């Protein structure tokens, strides 16, 4: 006599499977939510730091040039934020409302940092290297991904460079203003280096030609590296 089909067992297996399956979905959503909260928290911290820095700069005027190292301030935090935001955008999709809100806030923070850097430049006589990068991930920019790789590498190699990336299609008045100030056309990717706009893919070599200081930075880095090696021997 063949073992009979136990309908209860089939049902139990179905219920357990459904619980596990939808449990996985819930857990995944919970983690995504936690990520968004973490990004929000980082953004808030950076906003607070920028405000503090602006206030400090306003209070101390020129003397802040000596007390605060503005060359790399917020650079690392903004890079870290950019990486996390990019990862979240990849996972949740660029149409996700919360991702769009985070990107808007991130764009605002970048502009604030850009303005602060401008003020420092003016008061302290420092000329930081800034690159503004306009991209699109709406499928109309074949080279944007490659340009992103190049800029990520530059960021890692030269922390002194401040790279601000803006989604060309982001519906945010500040981004629109930036686009109009620099007259950015819809021929992406577009880079703004020292107030001049460059269109199309730019390789690391192209960027080094535009910014000759990068060679000096590299030479300084190598010198420092050699000095460290000599002192440890």
């Amino acid at each position: 006599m063949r073992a009979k089909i136990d309908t209860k067992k089939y049902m139990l297996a179905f219920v357990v499977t459904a619980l596990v399956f939808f449990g996985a979905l819930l857990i995944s959503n919970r983690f995504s939510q936690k990520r968004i909260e973490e990004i929000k928290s980082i953004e808030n911290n950076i906003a607070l730091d920028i405000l503090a820095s602006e206030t400090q700069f306003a209070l101390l005027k020129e003397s802040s040039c000596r007390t605060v190292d503005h060359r790399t301030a917020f650079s690392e935090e903004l890079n870290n934020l950019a990486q996390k935001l990019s990862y979240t955008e990849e996972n949740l999709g660029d149409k996700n409302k919360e991702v769009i809100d985070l990107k808007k806030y991130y764009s605002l923070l970048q502009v604030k940092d850009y303005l602060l850097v401008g003020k420092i430049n003016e008061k302290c006589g420092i000329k930081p290297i800034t690159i503004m990068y306009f991209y699109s991930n709406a499928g109309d920019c074949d080279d944007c991904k490659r340009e992103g790789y190049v800029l990520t590498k530059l960021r890692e190699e030269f922390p002194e460079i401040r790279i601000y990336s803006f989604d060309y299609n982001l519906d945010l008045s500040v981004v629109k203003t930036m686009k109009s100030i620099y007259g950015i056309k819809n021929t992406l990717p577009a880079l703004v280096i020292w107030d001049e706009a460059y269109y199309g893919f730019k390789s690391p070599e192209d960027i080094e030609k535009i910014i000759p200081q990068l060679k000096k930075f590299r030479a300084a880095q190598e010198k420092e590296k050699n000095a460290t090696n000599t002192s440890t021997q």
Partner: protein
Amino acid sequence: MVEAFFSGILYVFLFITLYLEVFFLITFFEERLALQEKPHRTKLPHYPSVTIIVPCWNEEKTVTGTIHSLLDLNYPKEKLKIFIVDDGSTDSTWEVIQKFAHEPQVALIHKENGGKHTAVNLGIEKTNTDLIGCLDADSFVEKNALIEIAHAFNEDPSMMAATPVLIVHNPKTILQKMQKTEYHTGAFLKRMLSPLDAINVTPGPFSIFRKEVFEKIGLYKKAHNTEDMEFALRMQAHHLRIRNVHTAHVHTSTPGTLYKLYRQRLRWAYGTMKNTLDYRFMLFRREYGILGTITLPLSFFGVFIFLYNFGFIAFHAIQSIIEKIIEISTAGFIFALPRFDIFFFNTDFMAILAYIFIGLALVIIWNGTKLAEGRFRPSLSIFYFLVFYGMVAPLWFCRAIINIILSKGTKWR
């Protein structure tokens, strides 16, 4: 949109796969007490008479070990006959087996080559014992394997056939080690299918039958080079009970190279699908129980589900590799130690499902290893199985589907 469509199909397939794993684990939970039974029998109140047929075709290297393992069985000699049937070997198999001619239990039979099933059939026709079994000439039985099976036959008069737990013999290459864990998972699944009357194959290494089975449904017949599967399905079609005796252990040789493994698995995959098609009248039929509703659909459609899931993963893996190549060719290789940040730990839905599947696979491997080896020991075999099996199995599954479409058969070797 296209991505969402393909992901949707994948989710349905993953749900089905998860359902089956849960189903088997619930069965495992039901069977947990029976599984604690360890091999311990040294004597039986009744010893049924047994004939073991060893079909050989060019097995000069392994047949001696096979016969020795049979002679060493813990079973009364007068109750056990061993038929060595040389199926027209072209090597020195016939000469090699002559050294057993003086053994009173052993009968040496020579015939023209006609295929494994003809050799087994010849042996079946020549005997009249209570139980008749087969042992491939590249397999080796443990001392108590037969007494365990005989005990199971004594205990359950409705049991018409018994299959043992198969263990990979002396795994040396990475592929053999991979198969070792694969056989462990197979041992677990076979044991789970046993109480559900849903076993769909009585493998060549040491499947034992009551003689009534052959009287009732006839002998082996040619069936896509997987006659042992056809025979099991014919038994199931006649509602004859097949049980797995997890306390009986048999060691079997496995292919050591990818090409040999491919040939063997192509034969198995093609045969499984063809036999399932031949017995399609049992598909989704309640009167054939779990066999009709789970085992047979899984045997046929499982191949497509496996290939679809593999295709999806492979597509994304290739996409990632291409992106990495573009990144390196664009920006150069950046050597940086990876910074650990829990933020970047993949927790999307698909990743969490993957963790669950790996977890369930480990539960199955753990219990399969315990069935085969008595206790769980972590080994590289598990790693090889988890990493490589998914990469190599599509080779024979794809070819099996092509062969079915083209109606092209397979070869034994």
